């Protein structure tokens, strides 16, 4: 499933009425199964871009087409459902829910997509990321690396067509960075899932066949 952004505009309005243009993208595409690293400076609009792609934030103008669906034309509940089914999300701070075990955090992704909970698949994914022995552990009892691996498993549980990763290795040490990164990329290859990974690290970006600089195609006005 491909991704195509066309004439996307997003401007935030500050409390004092000041307009703050953040996105101005004429064209951006990502092919099915393609892996792209997106680099840019802090405050450059990387996170907003991910939010617009996932339907969390609605752009002021433009199209965000994933597969054959223009996300911007969907109602909010439909966008939520589309996100649950088609888009995987990995956050910089993992964002595992503390009340749930590793297995339950993975199953949670399924709960919101309206699918029947597939415990076997969740266990398989956790096994795949090397956590079959930590299924019943809560996030607080997992190491940082383990938490991020749970987050990877959770993002893949619904077999997404597009995986959005926002600085997924920023919170982990260099030793684990490579492992986690490889894990994400490998999982995407396996599922033929497009990957858009935001990073500020040249080392991380350097491992991707395609690297895009946000400032090269984002011209907010």
């Amino acid at each position, binding site marked *: 499933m491909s991704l195509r952004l066309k004439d996307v505009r997003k401007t935030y309005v500050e409390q004092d009425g000041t307009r703050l243009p953040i996105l101005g993208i004429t064209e951006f595409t990502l092919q099915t199964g393609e892996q792209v690293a997106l680099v840019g400076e802090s405050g450059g609009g990387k996170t907003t871009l991910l939010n617009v792609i996932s339907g969390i934030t609605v752009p002021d103008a433009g199209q965000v087409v994933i597969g054959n669906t223009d996300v911007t034309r969907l109602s909010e509940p439909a966008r939520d*459902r589309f996100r649950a089914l088609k888009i995987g999300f990995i956050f910089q701070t993992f964002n595992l829910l*503390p009340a749930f075990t590793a297995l339950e955090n993975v199953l949670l992704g399924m709960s*919101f997509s309206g699918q029947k909970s597939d415990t076997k698949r969740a266990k398989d994914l956790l096994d795949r990321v090397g956590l079959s022995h930590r299924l019943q552990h809560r996030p607080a009892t997992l190491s940082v690396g383990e938490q991020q691996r749970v987050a990877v498993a959770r993002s893949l549980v619904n077999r997404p067509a597009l995986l959005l990763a926002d600085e997924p290795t920023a919170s982990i040490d260099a030793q684990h960075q490579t492992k986690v990164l490889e894990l994400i990329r490998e999982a995407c290859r396996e599922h033929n899932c497009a990957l858009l990974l935001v990073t500020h690290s040249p080392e991380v970006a350097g491992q991707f066949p395609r690297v895009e600089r946000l400032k090269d195609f984002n011209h907010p006005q």
Partner: protein
Amino acid sequence: MNLVTIAWKSIRQRALASFLTALSVALGVTLMVSVLVVHGIVDRIFSQNASGYHLVVGAKGSPLQLVLNTIYHLSSPVENIPYLYYKELKANPRVENAIPICMGDVTMEGNFRIIGTSPEFFEVDYHPDKKFRVRGHFLEDDFDAVIGSQVAKTNGWKIGSTFQPAHGVADDDHVHDEKFTVVGVLAPTGTPNDNGVYIHIDGFYQIAGHEKPADEAAAKAAAFEAAQQASGGAKKVVVEAAPKATVAPKKEQHDHAGHDHAHHHHELPDEQKEVTAILINAKHDTASIMLRATINEGPYAQAAIPFQEINWILNNVVGNVRTLLVIMTALILVVSGVGIFVSIYNSMADRRREIAVMRALGAQRTTVFAIIFLESILLCVGGGLFGVLLGHGMVVIAAPILEVRTGLLIDPWAFETLELVILPVLIALASLVGIVPGMTAYRTDVAKALHA
């Protein structure tokens, strides 16, 4: 994973705060259940016992006190009325049963009331279609005693046990010499009868000191007769002249097997006898009404309708107390509801990110609203159900104490229909307090919360 499980996990995550808020609901419901159950029991038992007799006749004064004392063994005994009056009533054609009740003594052990009565007491249903059942036999001889089940249980008395009555309902040092023997133990009735010790009225009159002094008795008998003559209404009650009692020695001696009575054997003339009250069953309802009117017109006695008196006390005293308690406990529930609101609402600030993560994973606004709303319902309903159990548990603990003190047999698990209202009320309360935090979750700005 369904929404209830997700809500439950969130509750468990804040275990202490959740427990305390649910406990506050539980305590409110406990109080409410206790009030309802105890009131229901009191209501049933009073109504049940009150319907056993048409009238209670006793000395003029408070009809309520007469009923409470005679039937429920509560309150102090009222003044006595002449035995002759009892005999007249018994002979009245409108009267089906007239049962004398003599009070004034208690057992030394357990302070149970001793009631002198005739064997007929046990022949009449204590409640429509409910007859006394006895292990052993009912009253036959003068110094026989039949005891209620609670007396047997508390004092450990059984058939063949003997006791000496102590004078006075209040604590009194004087113990009578006469010994009575338990010949029957009543099966539990769930009424104050379970706390009664019934002795034969003839034995009661043979207890030293129970006779009215001869000169006082003669004067009172003369006054009674004069009053009867003067009162046209009262004459209607009297269908035959009161037979003149004669002072004659009693022929029977109490030296039969199993009895060892250390008492004086003397037969009292009727003029020297008194009764505390008379239980009346009229031949039909109309006769009961006419009988009551006639008795109340007379100078000597009053007739009270137990059902009416108990209804009065239930409606005007017990009912009002219950209403007040229910209002107070309802207020406690409202306060508990506010507690739940504060608890959930305060947690929302910490949970904004969690909610945003759920939304990012595809949860809809209505889904996160439902999760928070369900938390409120689970806390309220869980606390409420715990409160129902706790309430009945408290009645279980209080039941034996209440039984001993009031003679009321209490079923702690008796379910009051009003308790059915508790659950919907709690759900409504939970809905009310769950809306605002739910809306906060609903309105969460995902992009902001995720990167806050």
